[in-house]
């Protein structure tokens, strides 16, 4: 068992624990902090997978930008604690069962099969990226990602820009306090 695999398992566990924490905590600020933990753990997972650029983006965008927004919102809206109805719903037991089963099934399949497949054909997920790096057009991981993003994946990238615009419009439309005509 090499180091990277050990790291993977460790931070994967942290990520899952963090995610569980997000749900279980009753104080919104606590949930947000657990979410931050998950984000950071996932960033480490990216590093382990040699996706340094994505790891950096994960930290910058999620842990930096989005998390700050979340915390601001929580403070502004001033939600303290989920009161009233029992937080975990009646279906919690069933849901837990289904979730675990699903995890077992999908996880088992992924663990069992992925390794076999990875052995079978070397077309590992990172192949295209390493190919780009290896071909010499890009000097490193970040440049390779940029290379792919602006060349091969140009169209989805552009569609994504429209998608973000729509998200922005949606946020404005739904978020504006008064939405009268011609105000």
């Amino acid at each position, binding site marked *: 068992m090499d180091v990277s695999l050990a790291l993977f398992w460790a931070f994967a566990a942290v990520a899952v624990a963090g995610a569980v924490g997000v749900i279980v905590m009753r104080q919104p600020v606590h949930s947000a902090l657990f979410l931050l933990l998950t984000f950071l753990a996932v960033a480490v997972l990216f590093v382990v997978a040699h996706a340094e650029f994505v790891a950096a983006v994960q930290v910058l965008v999620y842990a930096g930008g989005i998390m700050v927004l979340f915390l601001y919102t929580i403070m502004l809206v001033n939600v303290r604690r989920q009161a009233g109805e029992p937080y975990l719903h009646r279906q919690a037991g069933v849901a837990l069962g289904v979730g675990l089963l699903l995890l077992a099934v999908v996880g088992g399949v992924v663990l069992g*099969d992925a390794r076999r*497949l990875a052995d079978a054909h070397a077309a590992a997920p990172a192949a295209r990226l390493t190919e780009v790096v290896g071909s010499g057009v890009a000097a490193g991981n970040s440049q390779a990602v940029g290379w792919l993003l602006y*060349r091969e*994946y*140009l*169209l989805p990238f552009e569609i994504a820009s429209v*998608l973000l615009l*729509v998200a922005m419009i949606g946020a404005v439309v*739904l978020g504006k306090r008064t*939405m009268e005509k011609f105000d």
Partner: protein
Amino acid sequence: MTFPFPASDLLVILPELVLTQLALGILLWATVVRKGREATLAWVSIASLAAAAVLIPVAARLSGPLPRAAFGGMLTLDRFSIFFKVLVLLATAVTILFSLKFVGTSSYPGGEYYALLLFSAVGMLFMASGTHLVSIYIALELMALSQYVLAGYFKRETKSVEAAAKYFVLGAFSSGVLLYGISLVYGAAGSLDLGDVARSLAATPRSSLLGVGIVLTASGMLFKIASAPFHVWAPDVYEGAPTPISAFFSVGPKLAAYAIFARIFFVGFGPRAGDWAPVLAASAALTMVVGNVGALLQQNVKRMLGYSSIGHAGYALLGLLAYASGTDARGENFGLWAILIYLAAYLLMTLGAFGLVVLLEAKGYATESVDDFNGLSKKNPLAAAAMLVFLLSLAGIPPTAGFVGKYFLFSAAMKAGWPSLALLAVLMSAVSLFYYFRIARAMYLVEGEGELRWREEPAVAAAVAVCVAGTLLLGILPQPFVALAKSCLLP
């Protein structure tokens, strides 16, 4: 850095490009449009859709022989995608017609509303021609995100906001599942390009990783077309959303979802049809039963139409199944064109029925419950007759489009070796008569209380008239449509 693809690739997405530009323009124009001139925005939006529709053949002509792949295989313009593009544009345009008065008389601004509809249409156009899982997924999200906002657009209506929230949460959930499925497929096949996926799947032995990947992808797709057991959101959302948006939801996104469903599963997962066909069969059976039986109990017309559209999704799945089973003795692939015809019929009759729901006003609101239709035949015989045509078509009674569509679908299922499903479909069609004819009965046999009013909306009335004409035309003279559908198949 130069543009990495041939410049003519831009011609392939000319309609999408122009529509995006026009949507942006409308968004900007909406900020300066004068009071009382808001309807112009709607008409300009319709004109934009028309422009996009006109540009489709232009794009097809200019960009070279079809099928024409572009952007390194991210999308392909073929007759299959053109078929769906035209339908999607039509559905969006009709939705805008339905919305004219709805938005005009509300206190909500129209500019963003129409722009969001157009953005959603852009997403659907890309979905229709996407041949790469990434481009398909992003396009799907573009469509879906616009729709989440549209569902909650009238944000002081509690029901509408609730519907939007549900739609958003569940939609995000299904997106997660879909994306996870895609990642597993990538893991198994080593590519996201549908053609490469197919080649890889044909070359590798059966694996459970791929099986689970396909199941997760299928779950995401089935959610989008509102098939059981992933359908539960549909009735709530249809009921809660504003009526024009419900009409849109039950047609536009579904058509686009069918397009990618068919493309992903036939082109990409085709070599593994044996794996996923039973899943679809189970879903189809469940969907038909749940949709039709669920509709039996509804009093709310929109909710009933919601359940009925679930039932119709089940019928359409039969076509996917039949296609999966390959070709008949004469080498004719019988499943897909049956779906195409059925979807065209479904578009006409569903939009028509919703159009009448928009047009008829009871107690100051759009019609809600079946009782609101009481005595319509006396008050407005033409509207009642039109509704009857749609109900007959939805139930699949000749000589309407619905009959032709069901006939081809069910016979395709028979030929493809799913006689039990075809039988179930026929049975469920019989069940559907009960609830469709409850409306017919209310219109013709029950005395109304004089509350039903006809909204003076010539544009909507015209749209409904077109739907009636189309429903009957397709029902009486199906041959040219069959020929058209047969020419629009996937390779």
